[in-house]
């Protein structure tokens, strides 16, 4: 079935090639030698013709579909373990049975213990995959040069709130959010919020600012957004998996994304930053989320489309090793708080069969027709990786030995 999808893609490309060649004007004599190209099984073939290209060949070098180069290996029997990010954990639990349905010889143990332990365990070699919301720092990379951080998906973050009587998506920006979290803005009808939302009738409900009590990648990307957009926040609190949250009376620390959503549901006036995989819970609780001001000055709602736009904007800048922060880009229509989710993997695995199984699993995960399909990602509202990043991830995966 999936092979069918793939051959359809290939077929579509081939048809495209044919159309392109057919539209070329047929050239007459004199018969010069021309170099022509043809894409066959996603590999570019070259041939010299006298005069004109034969049918099915083009003078323009076709670009092979880079993703079709991603091949999922058929591994031997192996046991793999994964631990780490609680944001990726639900996705791993969706991926694992689907992958094992195809390759039952590989057993995969998943665990949601937190990004930090995921990285530490991958570094010490106790697990094969450490999942992380954040890429490795240069210090970690120099300490353990064999670690790869391979983007395996894109997540984004919503700012949810619980204001009685307000169902509209509020417009918020970094300055207002920083004002709320530093206690300068204490009521929902504060002029600063009202100025961004002239059409919304805001009540005088006190604001309760929720933050994560555990160190977390969500805190990291949220405070990065505040740091990028509000100089006062940048100088005083900066960003990190934990920050010294300003001591304001209406602040609450909650454990995990789930804790944030549940607390917001029962706390009138709350505001919280939550991973997008909790979207259905937020909506189910009757809360809604805000549109955020991006680097381009637009207020953008979080959605697969706007996050994909942001990801596409950062695609070109994403280095081969995937280490980039994608916050507050100057991208039209892009949602400003998105991030890659990483698989942290050691290049040197204990045996070649383990390495092969690991490659196979990760290849499966980044393959658009398998792991990256919305059939799986859609369940947690993740965004498919851009083409270039898939290719880069694939190159990284190939380094696992």
């Amino acid at each position, binding site marked *: 079935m999936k092979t069918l999808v793939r051959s359809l893609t290939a077929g579509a490309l081939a048809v495209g090639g044919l159309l392109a060649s057919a539209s070329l004007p047929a050239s007459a004599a004199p018969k010069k030698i021309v170099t022509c190209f043809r894409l066959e099984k996603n590999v570019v073939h070259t041939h010299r013709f006298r005069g004109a290209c034969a049918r099915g060949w083009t003078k323009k070098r076709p670009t092979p579909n880079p993703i079709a180069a991603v091949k999922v290996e058929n591994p031997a029997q192996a046991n793999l373990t994964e631990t780490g990010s609680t944001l990726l954990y639900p996705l791993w639990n969706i991926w694992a049975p689907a992958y094992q349905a195809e390759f039952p010889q590989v057993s995969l143990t998943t665990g949601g213990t937190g*990004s930090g332990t995921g990285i530490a365990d991958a570094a010490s070699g106790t697990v094969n995959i450490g999942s992380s919301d954040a890429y490795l720092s240069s*210090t970690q990379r120099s300490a353990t040069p064999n670690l790869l951080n391979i983007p395996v998906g894109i997540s984004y973050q919503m700012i949810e709130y619980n204001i009685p009587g307000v169902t509209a998506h509020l417009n918020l920006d970094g300055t207002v959010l920083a004002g709320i979290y530093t206690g300068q803005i204490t009521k929902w009808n504060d002029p600063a919020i009202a100025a961004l939302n002239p059409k919304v009738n805001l009540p005088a409900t006190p604001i309760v600012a929720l933050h994560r*009590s555990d*160190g977390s990648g969500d805190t990291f990307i949220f405070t990065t957004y505040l740091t990028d957009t509000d100089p006062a926040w940048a100088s005083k609190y900066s960003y*990190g998996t934990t920050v*010294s949250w300003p001591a304001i*009376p209406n*602040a609450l*620390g909650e*454990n995990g994304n789930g804790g944030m959503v549940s607390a917001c549901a029962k706390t009138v006036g709350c505001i919280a930053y939550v991973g997008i995989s909790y979207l259905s819970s937020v909506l189910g609780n009757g809360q809604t989320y805000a549109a955020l001001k991006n680097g381009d000055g637009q207020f953008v709602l979080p959605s697969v489309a706007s996050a994909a736009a942001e990801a596409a904007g950062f695609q070109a800048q994403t280095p081969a090793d995937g280490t980039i922060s994608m916050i507050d880009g100057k991208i039209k229509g892009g949602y400003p708080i998105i991030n890659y989710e990483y698989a942290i993997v050691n290049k040197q695995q204990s045996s070649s069969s383990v390495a092969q199984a690991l490659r196979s699993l990760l290849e499966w995960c980044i393959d658009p027709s398998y792991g990256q399909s919305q059939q799986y990602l859609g369940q947690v509202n993740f965004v498919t990786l851009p083409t270039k990043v898939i290719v880069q991830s694939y190159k990284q995966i190939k380094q696992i030995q």
Partner: protein
Amino acid sequence: MGDENVSLPATAAPARRAPRARRAGPFARAAEDGLWRWSARVASIVPLGGLAFVLAVLAVKAWPALKVNGPGFVTRSGWVPGSTYANPVVTDGVAHPVGASYGAWPLIAGTLQTSVIALVVALPISIGTAFALTERLPPWVARPLSFFVEVLAGIPSVIIGLWGVLTLGPFLAAHVYPLVASHVPNVPVLRYFRGPTGYGEGLLTSGLVLGLMIVPIIASTTRDLFLQVPPLPKEGAEALGMTEAEVARRVTIPWVRSGIIGATVLGLGRALGETIAVAMISGSVLGAVAPNIFGTMTTVAATIVSQLDSAATDGTGFAIATLAEAGLVLAVISVIVNVAARVIVNRSSRHVAPVGRG
């Protein structure tokens, strides 16, 4: 009580005469003696070895943090891991992220505050309970109730935390705290009970839940102590015309006072080290001391459990080292408290054998 030496002489010679040695010859019996003696000796060293191992790991891990954070660690406020992605800087030969600045004062204050609240709540309740169980109630009521109190000591703290955060906290925040906050006069000490009452997570709720957790420890020990007070002095006091309250205040409690103090300090040790329930109920504010008694806060133990994972993302290892330092601070506080308890208990009457978790 007959607590004289009941042990066998340690140097007993292997079997002098053996009229009833069944299948074992003298050699086998000597071997058995040796086996018992040596395995017991080895086993008794395990806790010491374990303790030494734990302290050594803590000290080694905490050493870089001790050097960089300095003595200000216990007085400063603010928990800033620093910029983990920038190039690390080196202070005193220790690499750490730029801007890393750790101050544990709010955590230490939170630990002490919750424990004091727990004690203030638990001590009178425990003594009252012990008194009711020993003096007031008929045995057929007192026995199951005593058992019930002991069961409470065995309930996992995560379950008490669950109840605290889902049921007790919201209940208190909705019905009790606002009442307290609006009726307390604005005078120096009681002012602490005024102001915003929060959402049920914070200092007072944590203290109360900790109190409930240590009541069984103090109450069951106190009950055992009360039962050991000989009846004669009490009967004598009653014969002199003392009321029950006067007997308790002037005879029973003074008789076992040091034992009660010991049990209380044991309870305090439990409250200081409690982790998961506080992590659920404290509201988790790392950077500042609670502004009033309803305010959100956190403790050293709860901080270790909630920050250890993200500390591992600090490539310099400085965040992990700082948590070791926090653990060391907590260990020092608990050890001081425990040693104090032992000293007090040992100084008191012999028959005190504190039960419950240490």
